[in-house]
């Protein structure tokens, strides 16, 4: 495969609390190829957003990267000085947040916010930056951009604002865009449009996307690969068709079974009994073991590493077929 654009290895994020560090992300490893779309799914609190924030270097204290490494085009970016990391943000990694209503500064015209971002990352003249801002607004599908560029955020609808946010994230042609639940706060009817815009622009601008969501439908339609997260760990990662059709990890199985289908005649949707553990009470062994229908002794003692199965990896002892060799640390794409 091509050299990965982004390579995350054994990433661990901790929150320093009075009672000692809480591990919020543990052993997160994945590679992302240029132009690839990786979906990240999981319940609230599984660490999806934290993964995104850790990559772009915006963890709020007391959260911090406590271990592992993040490489962008082979260069380590998890230990950069704040100023060097700032230069990467927006220019090489863009990020889109959940709520377009609050992502834009209400006091500044959207044109000003676009132009300041473009001027930060390019050597364009203000006039050329404005022209570029208008063309970006055209690209994300804002009608009459020459006029709308002088509007304030409150003059735009939620969907239109998220288009503006996408334009802002793409200002400097970043190679990677992290979209943190970009459609959760939007009307269902608008969600599909925004995902379509995001997907189209990522393709046109050759940007890889990490799409964080809890909407499996969006993932199935949009992503190339998907990572299923649980309690700060990746339960399963692999090609979308495989993971959706035939999930390996019991948690992923439960998640897929809980998706309503039109054909399904079941009176009740499947559900996974219990709730995800709090960060302070993650059980030893596999984090999913108290809820797992296939649990056996080993799960309660030993933590399963990501085991390669075909093109996938699943962190589950069910797939450790007694091989003596330690599980490969290699990433699979």
């Amino acid at each position, binding site marked *: 495969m091509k050299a990965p654009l982004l390579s995350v290895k054994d990433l661990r994020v901790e929150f320093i609390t009075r009672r000692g560090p809480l591990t919020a992300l543990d052993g997160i490893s994945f590679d992302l190829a240029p132009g690839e779309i990786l979906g990240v799914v999981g319940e609230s609190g599984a660490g999806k957003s934290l993964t995104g924030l850790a990559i772009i270097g*915006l963890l709020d204290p007391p959260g911090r990267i406590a271990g592992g490494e993040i490489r962008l085009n082979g260069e380590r970016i998890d230990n950069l000085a704040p100023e060097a990391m700032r230069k990467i*943000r*927006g220019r090489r990694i863009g990020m889109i947040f959940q709520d377009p209503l609050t*992502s834009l500064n*209400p*006091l500044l015209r959207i044109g000003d916010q676009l132009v*300041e971002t473009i001027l930060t990352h390019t050597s364009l003249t203000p006039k050329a930056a404005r022209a570029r801002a208008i063309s970006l607004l055209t690209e994300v599908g804002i009608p009459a951009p020459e006029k709308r560029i002088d509007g*304030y955020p*409150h003059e735009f609808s939620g969907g239109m604002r998220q288009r503006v946010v996408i334009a802002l994230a793409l200002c400097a042609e970043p190679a990677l865009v992290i979209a943190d639940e970009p459609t959760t706060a939007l009307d269902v009817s608008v969600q599909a449009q925004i995902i379509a815009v995001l997907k189209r622009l990522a393709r046109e601008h050759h940007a890889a996307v990490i799409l964080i969501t809890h909407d499996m439908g969006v993932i199935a339609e949009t992503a190339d690969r998907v990572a299923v997260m649980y309690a700060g760990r990746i339960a399963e990662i692999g090609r979308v068709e495989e993971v959706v059709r035939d999930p390996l990890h019991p948690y992923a199985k439960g998640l897929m079974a809980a998706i309503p289908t039109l054909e399904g005649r079941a009176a009740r949707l499947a559900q996974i009994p219990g709730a995800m553990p709090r960060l302070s009470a993650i059980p030893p062994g596999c984090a999913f073991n108290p809820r797992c229908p296939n649990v056996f002794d080993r799960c309660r003692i030993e933590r399963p590493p990501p085991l390669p199965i075909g093109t996938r990896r699943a962190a589950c002892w069910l797939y450790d077929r007694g091989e003596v060799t330690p599980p490969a640390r290699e990433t699979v794409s």
Partner: protein
Amino acid sequence: MIAFIIRRLFASIGVLIAVGLIAFLLFRYVGDPVNQMVGIETPESERVALRQQLGLNDPAIVQALRFLGHAARLDFGISYQFKQPVSELIGARMPATLELAFVASILSLLAGIPMGVYTALHRKSALAKLFEALSLVGISLPTFLIGILLIYLFAVTLGWLPSFGRGDVVHIGSWWTTGLLTASGLKSIIMPAITLALFQMTLIMRLVRAEMLEVLRADYIRFARARGLSERKVHFRHALKNTLVPVITVVGLQLGSIVAFSIITETVFSWPGMGQLFLQSVQNVDIPIMAAYLLFIAFLFVVINLVVDLLYAAVDPRLRVAIHGA
């Protein structure tokens, strides 16, 4: 926008008429104006004549309208104690008070906003902690004590600054006088302005700090960082501007309070302003001055409120819509 201003002007006139009626009640029914004007040995016949001459026998409604009519022409009658027109007395002292209030406000803004921003951005630094400790002192020490301490230090011990008065003044136009153009005037205003500004400054600092901390948690600040904007831009272009609406409110109302209630500071520094005049008029039951002062302060607050509303619109485009559409 114009419609908004006109509507607000009408509302303001309503407020002023209401305050004017209260001033009239004060003027007419707190004590007997005739008794205030004449001596004890004045014969009853003269009193009756004066009463008739002043129109005090007319129906109350006629008197009220006459009072308002005169007030609209800035005619508030003759001061009982000074035997001079009230408007002249107030007019002569207004520049001193307004100048003091203006300088104190500028001072408190220039110091308070940067200190608030600094303490919000560098919460853990020693300087921020010092500022916060100082702000506690500023907010809890009474004005007269600060004034007296300043006088003791800079006027008595060091002899750098005058302890009272306004220094030399320069006339501008027909009635405005300013001390800001002479060396002694500038020297004289330093201590009273600091005394008056200290409380405002701590108030502004604490307000800016609290607002700034709130705004820095906002999504658009995180998004601004995610776009790679410099910290300076994030802090001053994106965050500070969003803290300004509450700051404008407080500063505006505080400016009104400074003008209206700088009485203590003016007394401590023998500042020849309206506060002193008002204090004297209270001591001597000089009702015309009190009534006029009441109206003046009402007028001041009405104007400040209007300016504050317009500034809101200048800062926040969302309020512009409300003002256009209202």
